[in-house]
């Protein structure tokens, strides 16, 4: 199945903690045909002029009929999304992008903030396959990771918070630098650009494989706007985060 475009009904949309929300939309076709690390575009309405553009969201969970997302209200677009109620419809298209490539190596999943979303999906998929793996998520405070409780039935994780209010005190990247990850590992990561940069550096130091999911400005998700360019590391030119990514081998991109 290719890309599905539809007006999907919102099943749930509620606040978890200080501006973090869970959104669940009914979209069986996308749920069935997508994989961890892929994303969809969500537009509040086709006739909405301001804000104009759709937003890209990675799935945190795919049930048989629905897609679950985590988002944080940061601007007008997410603000308007947070006002939508169950039964309202949003325009969605997907699945888009490549998703993570699951390898046989010892899997370490490193998420920062809402960047944990695709790693929750990946963790659930790995558990389904009976793969041992570790999920580590970071935030500034415990409130930033409250959304993880919504997924506690299927994923277990270790927390790092900058203020020490949950789990270890420090940055999530400390998990790698503290000797938990070696050359035998495959790191799967998603989060803020600064964090991904550090994860990529540490992976190179340790000799570990490393896949990072990159968020960039993006207008279409389909490969036409060329707004989501990611510089190639080993040659000139750019990848497109939407169709070549959003997941890249950290050795192949400059971030």
């Amino acid at each position, binding site marked *: 199945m*290719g*890309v*599905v*475009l539809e007006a999907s009904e919102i099943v749930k949309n509620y606040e978890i903690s200080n501006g973090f929300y869970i959104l669940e939309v009914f979209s069986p076709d996308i749920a069935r045909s997508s994989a961890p690390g892929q994303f969809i575009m969500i*537009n509040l309405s*086709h*006739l*909405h*002029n*301001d*804000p*104009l*553009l*759709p937003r890209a969201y990675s799935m945190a969970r795919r049930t048989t009929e629905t897609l679950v997302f985590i988002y944080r209200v940061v601007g007008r677009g997410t603000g308007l999304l947070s006002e939508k109620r169950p039964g309202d419809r949003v*325009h969605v*298209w997907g699945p888009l992008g490549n998703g993570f490539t699951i390898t046989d190596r010892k899997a370490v999943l490193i998420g920062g903030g809402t960047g944990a979303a695709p790693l929750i999906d990946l963790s659930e998929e790995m558990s389904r396959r009976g793969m041992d793996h570790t999920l580590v998520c970071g935030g500034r405070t415990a409130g930033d990771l409250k959304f993880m409780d919504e997924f506690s039935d299927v994923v277990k994780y270790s927390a790092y918070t900058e203020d020490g209010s949950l789990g270890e005190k420090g940055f999530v990247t400390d998990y790698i630098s503290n000797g938990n990850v070696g050359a035998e590992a495959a790191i799967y990561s998603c989060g803020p650009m600064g964090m991904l940069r550090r994860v990529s550096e540490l992976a190179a130091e340790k000799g570990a494989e490393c896949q990072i999911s990159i968020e*960039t*400005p*993006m*207008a*279409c998700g*389909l*490969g*036409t*706007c*060329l*707004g989501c*360019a*990611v*510089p190639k590391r080993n040659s*000139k*030119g*750019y990848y497109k985060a939407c169709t070549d990514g959003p997941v890249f081998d950290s050795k192949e991109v400059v971030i």
Partner: protein
Amino acid sequence: MADISVKLGALELPSPVMAASGTFGFGLEYRDVLDYNKLGAIVTKGVSLKPREGNPMPRIVETPCGMLNSIGLQNPGVESFVGDLLPQVKGLGVPIIVNVFGETVEEYVRVAEMIQSTGAVAGVELNVSCPNVKCGGIHFGANPEMLHEVTKAVREVTDLHLMVKLSPEAAVIEAVSNAAEQAGADSLSAINTIRGMSINIETRKPRIATTTGGLSGPALKPLAVRMVWEASRSVSIPVVGIGGISTAMDAIEFIIAGASAVQVGTANYTNPRACEEIADGIAVYLEERDIPKLSDIVGSVEVYEDYTLK
């Protein structure tokens, strides 16, 4: 069913709705979500003689009712387009108009020659209005003499439909419209983006790596309608309206202003099915008002009799 087919000179199109250059890739990207039978034509991303990497990030930013972009004409070059992409694109069954870009007159001519020789393309759209490149683009389109020179040179090497895409940054739209017509253009498309700027007030950095970018989307629409109206009054060749069209009503407004057809750009991002819905909506508009064919309302704006500025 109302007749929404259009003729642009000798070029017959099944629908007045074309996908605008730079918003539709090379035509393959929307196959899963759009009924291509509703398209009049696909105007490709700009094609240059040599491959272009494009501009650094950030390249796009959302603005009120619009967006700025500065992609820098990233494209694989004409050789790769003709060899790798065109064979797939022509299988779509939709007329293809290739947006042609050059840094010099000679480059425009060489790209147009290669497009002409494929025999698989309905027309070329001369990109003399891109605001995001150092050489070429808008430098030709803002100046009537240079526009005449490049249009004439391309006209001499192609008998394909020759559409010239105007810039809103030309000082006098009538002058560039006339220059393109006199040089042998078969149609005009208006308008390309206009340069805009957006600044992050915390970092004081522009939100576009090249400082300025082209503004597109609904924010541009009234400006575009005005320029289509002005251009269509000053030439006898057809004008194709572009600029913030996201609904059938938007398209109809351009047509009443003087456009014989339209291109849909930024709306392809916000609604991948925009072209299809606009084409259907145009037909409904005509049927509901018992207008037999679209050409009946082209340029039918009824300006106030005493509209002249005092």
